[in-house]
């Protein structure tokens, strides 16, 4: 989530300057390519379920349909999100958003059988998994997909989610990236533990030889306070070496983890200036870790609303936003801040006249962004002022102030122009799209935006390779 207001019309911000080499930490590249992924969150307010055209969000057919659609659109990757506890509002299951999602690796393993090219990326948690177990499942997905697996490395720091796991909320906030770093290093060691020629393949292997060459498979041991294991990998390296690592954290710890280990960052910095600053910061960190600028791809999350004319696109964007911020959702949004039941208030009426509770917000329940964990009273005071000044109803206020995904709104041509600028100036390497309506919002991109990008020489016209690492044009592993 970004704190950018979605109603901003981005098309007025197209920057044609080419003098950004220094500011992004990479030279202008007139041949730069747009890499696209789709982040299938499976939950959240951005997914519209009330429209009759919305596909069922938990049916396997929907996932197959989307993955195959994206493969037709020559996308790099299909991402699945993860949340290890059903989201809540004030202690009750949050009932207004799409909910209920599959285990990501299980789902992607199924999709591997009905797709051929597209990368399959699982968001998986380093806090509530066993490293050897998760590394093995990811490597298995990588083999089954013949080198198309990715892992979006995330951490969780709250005990609320931990209540679903053996260890509970055992990891303090500051140490979650420390564990994540060790977790990833242990996983990488397991993925590299089979020598390339470990498995016999000579003509005599079956009669006289051994299945694996003696000493060709190393046992990995790790013994620290945060990660303890002794394991032997049961699978060799895949066609792409190992799963591609994605990292999404935007904190200092998250950025360091990305600079050390990630192949792709799923960044939140989508506004152009922020994207430039982020790219520069990240590339500086990369250099400190001895890595080249091209060893990491930056794919910020983005929403897209396309129309055949500018006006149509703007209309559609308003409709999307209205659907996303329904009356009940607006009330529920305020309830989190007020800390009390506001269901008696009219979403189209004025703000609640009662005072909120004293307690700060608990952002751990999955419905609120983390930067709002403090300063509640001050925030509510500002909202009251804003509502009074502009005579806003509850719903109108929420439309103004609720953090939402940055949305690219326009015709396929204007959005393509903007994206080409983003990638050629090296602010980003592409986008990880969060769809609002499945499947039609994605079909729009595949059918209208992709051809525009291709016309500009900024998008592949066929898959060049077969692995996710090849799609992302990342250097060979090892």
């Amino acid at each position: 989530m970004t704190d950018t207001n979605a109603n901003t019309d981005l098309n007025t911000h197209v920057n044609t300057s080419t003098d950004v080499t220094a500011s992004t930490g990479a030279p202008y590249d007139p041949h730069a390519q747009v890499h696209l992924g789709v982040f299938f969150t499976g939950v959240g307010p951005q997914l519209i379920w009330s429209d009759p055209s919305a596909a069922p969000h938990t049916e396997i057919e929907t996932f197959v349909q989307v993955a195959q659609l994206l493969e037709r659109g020559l996308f790099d990757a299909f991402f699945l999100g993860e949340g290890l506890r059903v989201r809540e509002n004030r202690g009750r299951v949050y009932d207004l958003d799409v909910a209920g999602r599959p285990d990501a690796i299980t789902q992607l393993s199924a999709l591997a059988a009905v797709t051929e090219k597209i990368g399959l990326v699982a968001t998986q948690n380093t806090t509530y998994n066993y490293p050897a177990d998760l590394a093995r499942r990811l490597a298995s997905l990588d083999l089954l997909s013949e080198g198309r697996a990715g892992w979006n490395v995330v951490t969780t720091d709250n005990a609320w989610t931990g209540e679903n796991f053996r260890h509970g909320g055992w990891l303090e906030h500051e140490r979650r990236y420390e564990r994540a770093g060790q977790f990833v290093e242990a996983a990488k060691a397991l993925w590299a533990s089979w020598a390339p020629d470990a498995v016999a393949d000579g003509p005599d292997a079956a009669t006289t030889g051994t299945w694996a060459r003696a000493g060709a498979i190393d046992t990995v041991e790790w013994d620290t306070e945060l990660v303890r294991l002794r394991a032997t990998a049961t699978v060799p390296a895949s066609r792409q070496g190992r799963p591609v690592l994605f990292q999404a954290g935007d904190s200092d710890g998250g950025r360091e983890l990305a600079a050390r280990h990630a192949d792709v960052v799923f960044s939140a910095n989508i506004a152009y200036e922020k994207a430039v600053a982020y790219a520069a910061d990240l590339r500086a960190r990369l250099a400190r870790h001895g890595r080249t600028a091209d060893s990491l791809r930056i794919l910020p999350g983005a929403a897209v609303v396309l129309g055949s004319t500018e006006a149509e696109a703007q209309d559609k964007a308003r409709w999307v936003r209205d659907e996303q911020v329904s009356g009940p959702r607006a009330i529920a949004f305020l309830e989190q801040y007020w800390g009390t039941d506001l269901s008696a208030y009219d979403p189209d009426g004025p703000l609640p006249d009662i005072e909120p509770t004293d307690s700060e917000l608990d952002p751990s329940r999955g419905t609120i962004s983390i930067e709002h964990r403090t300063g509640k009273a001050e925030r509510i005071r500002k909202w009251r002022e804003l509502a009074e000044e502009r005579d806003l109803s509850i719903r109108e206020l929420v439309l103004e102030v609720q953090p939402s995904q940055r949305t690219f709104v326009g015709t396929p041509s204007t959005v393509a122009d903007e994206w080409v600028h983003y990638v050629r100036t090296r602010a980003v390497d592409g986008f990880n799209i969060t769809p609002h309506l499945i499947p039609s919002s994605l079909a729009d991109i595949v059918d209208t935006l992709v051809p525009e990008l291709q016309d500009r020489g900024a998008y592949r016209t066929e898959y060049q390779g077969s692995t996710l690492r090849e799609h992302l044009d990342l250097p060979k592993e090892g």
Partner: protein
Amino acid sequence: MTPTPATALRRQSRARKAPRPPRPAPEPYRFPWWRWPGPPTFDDVCDALAFQYFLLDELLRSVRSAGWRAPTRLAGWRVADLLGHAITNAEHVFRMAHTPPSGDGSPIQDALDWYQGSGLFSSLIAEQARSVASSGSRARARLPELAGLHEVAASTAAAILRSGDPGLVLGGAASDITLADYTVTRLVEAVVHGLDLADALDRPGRAYGPAVRLVSGYFAALGERRGGGAIPRAAQITLAADGALVALHPRQPASVVPAISWIEAATGRRTPCCRTPTSGSPTCCRWSREPRRAGKEPRLEACFVTHHPPGTAEHAGTGSPRGGGFHLALEVDGDGAHPAAWRHSGRPPGAVLTPAAVRKVVAEAERAGFALVTFDDGPLPPNVGRPDREAGSQTDREADRQTDRQTDREPGSGAGPDAAGRIEAGTRAAYVSVVTDRVGLAPTLHVTTTEPFHLATQLASLDHTSKGRAAWVVGAANSEDALATVGGLPRTADALRRETADVVAVARALWDSWQDDAVIKDVATGRYLDVDRVHPIDFQGGDFTVKGPLITPRPPQGQVVVLAADALELDAEVDVVLVGHPDPFGIAARAKAARDAGAPLVFAEIEVVLDADVPAEDRLAALEAASHWPETGRLRHVGPAAELTELLIGLAEVVDGVRLHPAVLAVDLPVLTAEVLPALAAARLHRAPEPDRTLRDTLGLARPANRFAAAATTDAVRTAI
């Protein structure tokens, strides 16, 4: 106290394990009249007899008093009379055991001549039977009394016969006979009258496969000796490879007769039902009693292995004791169950780690008609590990390999001579879930090395991707090396049992945590979910807690089908208990115990090495020359497919299904597909699952009600009151 058959069997089973005194004759006893491949040993006959008695006792236990006076197909005999006869037959053993041979130099009779001249149902025999039948005190109490009498007499008789030297000569009424041949006559009685009783009681005719084969061979030999006189319409009879009898009628093409039908035909009870061996068609034709008219084909009728009228539940069923069909599961891990299987897979060693290999073996199993495939797994490479005996874990096999051959290695240090690679089972099952449409998919997931919440989510997701075909083979890896992968330590046996039961309970609760109708998509109120239909589970286990609800909606089956090895002692918690025991008696006893404890289904575990281009024994020898296949405690069949079929037919009397572990998938699976499954289908014992049905449908398991939905209903009622 009267021993139950189960305890009697258990006792026998134990007795069989005790070292026997060496027999004077080094050669196994040979039945001189046996003319076909695979001559039986005395032990075979004793095993078959004990099993047949067990089946008869099972049948009798289920009889209601109403069946007591039912007529039988033996003119003038009621069920009670026939049972009296069966008791007399068993008690006859006590008398024979104490009758010395005549010693007058007259020739010793063999089993074929036992009935010579005596007449099957002489007035003397009938009188004895009626006298036993009317020995009970009051009419209503008679049947249980007689059933108990038979149990005692039969188990004692079986034990007496087994304890003797097969060559011992006993004094018969007309002439002397060896103990072994006399035992054959008891088996013939038990099988034939067991079928009679089943028929009279309107139950499926059941017999233990090897017993059927023995008795079929007996009647075939009898037919030959008597020139066809004793067997209608059969001048010449041979025993086919699959155990059926082939009748070479002078004016008919060779016809294959299902063995049970043949036994009934040979004793004048039925007209044989047949099929031509060349067509291979499972459809049987019944020879018409009328002479064939020129130009008219024999009338086609249903085979009558079971004789229930069409339309009844028994008719639709496939002969399982529980009426739910007989289910076939196949273990498809790696190149096969034998550690050296990879050397005979006909492909490069690393090919097993490709998606194509996973897809191929599952597609073959689905095409063959298996109800379920299982994917064995463990946290360690398949060729390393340590004993997990107390856990009954799925990694026992690897454990044994390790301890047998790699004792000089550092534990967990990696590759032995055999396969070190294995794709995680849950991902393999998921991968094939969208390219199959009827076979059940059961990965092994270990409770000790996976987070319970993840495990439940993964299985629920598999059920969604497969449209209700997911199952879980509960694993409980507990070796030091296995636990080291998660930084843990092995549990004590008690702690492991508790933890395993806890994880199963957590998974089951989480699968219920979303009610089926939790997603409401109510546009008017903006509510996607009904919060009253999504529940925390608040599980408090021995060592951990789980809050819930699951992040995934309720699986299409309601509850994923759960399977567990008998050693895990989860009989009441799972849907299918997998019984691993080296002999059918042990399997029968453990199956009964599992059922008594509440297990809905029981499958037997069978490892198979079948005759292919190379005889099974030679194949096994070649495999063993490369690597030793340690005993796993499972029944192991090494031999022709036909004998496996017989074994399965026999086991169908005591279990609801089997899980087969082919030694080499590339070799054994085609034989299973071409020979065993069609033979079972022809015997109406097996039916391929239908597309787009859930695994629960296929297995005849009901879709469980949701515990929270049930609770909500109760609350609503309480509120209303």
